[in-house]
Each structure stands twice: as structure tokens, then as C-alpha cells.
């Protein structure tokens, strides 16, 4: 079983649209994991049935027991996040501001503060329109994605892929270069970067590549909207060559990309789109690369 993780560093490069297209091309061969949990949107394109759901707990927040509280105000003084107030006469914690550091609980002379695990959202296993299953998650308002949640989504996807003997896991990776991305990359067999020929596109590609390089995971790159700025596209290709990243495909700018998204479909469901052919070849190439590894 091979795990392919698709990341971009920068938002808006077309990562999720391309990931969903690979999911369609792989059909029932690939279990999908949506690890872009902060802004999960694979479900808009792959039509899950939300078959199974479960609560997800992550991180802690302070809770003050009003029975034990002696209203000394020390907790409010030490809190660096302005998460404690006593506007109502009672000392209370705002969960949106509380970072869970535990300083208040540590100094409370009455032992009135405990750190409580937070229910931050739900994770799901769904049947999707590709004929396979997807593991995904949704966060409550104000909740953060975490390495823990990504690890959970990936672990469940791997368990299903093992059980159903699937050859591929396709992971829509988290954005940025922080903890959730590190967790997305962990255990990956191949990384696909999706970038675009803009200054921030190449900048964020370089940044996220540094992370992938640390893990020594082989990687390839798709340049989306490559024809919009041929000079920056050439710069990106030079960067790929210099760093041993395989150049997988150039996608032309085409309005079918937006049209598919607006209709809640993947691009490869539009046979007349010039992108469909390129992505189909790209998926075949990817499978060959993985076979040779």
C-alpha cells in the first residue's frame, strides 16, 4: 500500500481540486484522507454519505469550579491570553481565548481550576462517489487543527486501506509548514506539491520543500495555471531540477477548473477540459513512479 500526500504550502493553488481529481481517477483503488481539516472541502467534491461519525477531543481548557473559587482574582492576573474575566461576578474562562497552558490552575490557592479536555469537532468515515471510502473531519468554530487530529484521520484511513486491501491512500495535506503538515507527511511514500507561477507560490513551495526534504520523502510537482506567468514557471522548474523534485505536469489555466468547483464536481468529470487529459496521464505516471520505489 502506498501513501501519496498532496500539499501546497500556499493556499488557492488548486491542491484540493487536483487531489479530488486523483481520487476520481483512482476510483475504488484509493482510500481518501482529508487532512486539510481547518478548511475541509473535499466533501463538497466527493459527496460523502457521512456514514460513521465520532467526537474528537484535543487539547485542554481551564474550567473554574464556582463552589471552590474564593474570588481572589489571581488567575485573571496571570493569564497572558485574557481568557479569564469576572464580569458576571463569577470568575469565568472564555474557551475561545484559553490556550490551555494551565498557569491559572497552577497558582490557584483554592484548587478551583481544572484542565478539561476539549471536544473540538467530529471525524467521519464516509462512502464517496469514487466507490471507495474517505476519512475526514470537521472542527467547531474557533477550534484549531492539530497534529493529533491529522494523525487520527491518517491512522483510520490506513486501517481501512489495510482491511480492504487497497493499493493507495491519497491524502489532502494540511496547509502551511506547522505541526499538522508534519503530521500529514509522516509515513508518506510520495509527496506531490501543487504550486502556481506567482511570487508567493514559489516562495511557499520552497518553504514546504524544506520540510519534506527533512523527511527524505521522494516528491514531484504539478504547476497549476503554468501558462499565466511563463517566467516564474521557468523559475519553478529550475528549482525542481536543482532539488531532484520530479516535474509531474503543467496544467494550463482553464475555466473548466472553476466551473467544476462551482458545480461541486472534480475536473476530470469534464472530458472536454484540457486539464482532464493532463491529470489522467499524471495519475498513470504517479502509479508508475510508486511501483518503481
Amino acid at each position: 500500500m502506498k501513501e501519496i500526500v498532496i500539499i501546497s504550502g500556499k493556499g488557492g493553488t488548486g491542491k484540493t481540486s487536483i487531489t479530488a481529481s486523483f481520487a476520481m481517477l483512482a476510483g475504488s483503488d484509493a482510500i481518501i484522507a482529508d487532512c486539510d481539516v481547518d478548511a475541509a472541502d473535499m466533501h463538497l467534491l466527493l459527496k460523502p454519505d457521512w456514514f460513521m461519525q465520532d467526537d474528537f477531543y484535543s487539547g485542554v481548557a481551564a474550567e473554574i469550579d464556582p463552589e471552590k473559587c474564593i474570588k481572589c482574582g489571581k488567575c485573571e492576573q496571570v493569564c497572558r491570553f485574557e481568557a479569564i474575566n469576572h464580569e458576571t461576578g463569577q470568575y469565568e474562562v472564555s474557551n475561545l481565548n484559553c490556550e490551555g497552558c494551565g498557569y491559572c490552575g497552577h497558582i490557584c490557592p483554592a484548587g478551583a481550576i481544572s484542565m478539561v479536555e476539549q471536544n473540538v469537532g467530529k471525524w467521519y468515515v464516509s462512502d464517496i462517489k469514487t466507490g471507495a471510502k474517505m476519512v475526514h473531519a470537521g472542527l467547531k468554530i474557533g477550534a484549531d487543527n492539530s497534529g493529533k487530529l491529522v494523525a487520527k484521520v491518517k491512522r483510520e484511513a490506513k486501517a481501512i486501506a489495510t482491511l480492504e486491501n487497497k493499493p493507495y491512500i491519497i491524502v489532502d495535506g494540511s496547509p502551511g509548514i506547522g505541526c499538522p503538515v508534519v503530521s500529514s507527511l509522516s509515513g508518506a511514500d510520495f509527496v506531490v506539491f501543487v504550486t502556481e507561477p506567482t511570487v508567493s507560490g514559489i516562495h511557499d513551495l520552497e518553504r514546504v520543500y524544506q520540510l519534506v526534504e527533512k523527511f527524505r520523502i521522494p516528491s514531484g510537482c504539478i504547476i497549476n495555471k503554468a501558462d499565466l506567468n511563463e517566467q516564474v514557471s521557468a523559475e519553478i522548474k529550475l528549482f525542481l531540477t536543482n532539488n531532484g523534485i520530479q516535474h509531474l505536469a503543467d496544467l494550463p489555466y482553464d475555466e473548466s477548473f472553476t466551473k467544476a468547483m462551482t458545480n461541486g464536481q472534480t475536473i476530470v468529470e469534464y472530458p472536454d477540459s484540457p486539464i482532464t487529459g493532463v491529470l489522467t496521464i499524471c495519475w498513470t505516471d504517479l502509479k508508475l513512479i510508486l511501483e518503481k520505489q
Partner: protein
Amino acid sequence: MKIAFTTTGTDWNASIDPRFGRTEYILIYDEEKDEITNFDNRDIADVAHGAGPKTAQLIFDLKPQVLITGNGPGGNAAAVLTKTDLKIYIGAGNMTVKEAYEAYKTGILKQS
């Protein structure tokens, strides 16, 4: 030589956990004593953030000379581990502990 493995189980036939920070167990094989010991890492695997440096701390305390894992530690954990003399071997993600040990002995695993 004490060799640490990131694993999903507690014996020779357990799979290597490809993750470093969120590995389920750390298994230590002491070659001189021919003895296996296990450390349950699931509490660390369950923290929201900072699993890497916490697991690195555990490795630091256990003092193995060699670590065998899947992808290798991320940036923060690697920064901790470079302060030790630990040699890190990667690429054992799809192996059992036994296979990974043999691959290490025959020089198949890459040093990170």
C-alpha cells in the same frame, strides 16, 4: 549497542511505526544482553501539539546509540536529537522490527 525502534507493537514481529513523534511504542533492543524492552508512547502520541520534542526527550532519557524509524524526526525533534550522539536510520516504515534490524545490520537502511 542499544537500538531503539519506533513501533506499533511490542515484539520482533511488530510493525515499525513510520511516525517518530506519534509512534505508539519505543522498543529498545539491547544487543549485548539480547533483551527487548518497551516504552508505551501512546500518551505522547495523543497530545495535540509538540509530540516530536516530547518523544525526542524520551529517546534522550533512554540513551540508545541507534534509532530506526520510518521517515525520521521532524524539525523540532531533530533539533533535540542532534545534541546527542544518536545515529538515526530511516526507511523502515513498511518493515517489521525483525526485518528492520536485519536491514540495518546489512546496511540497507539509510542514515538520516
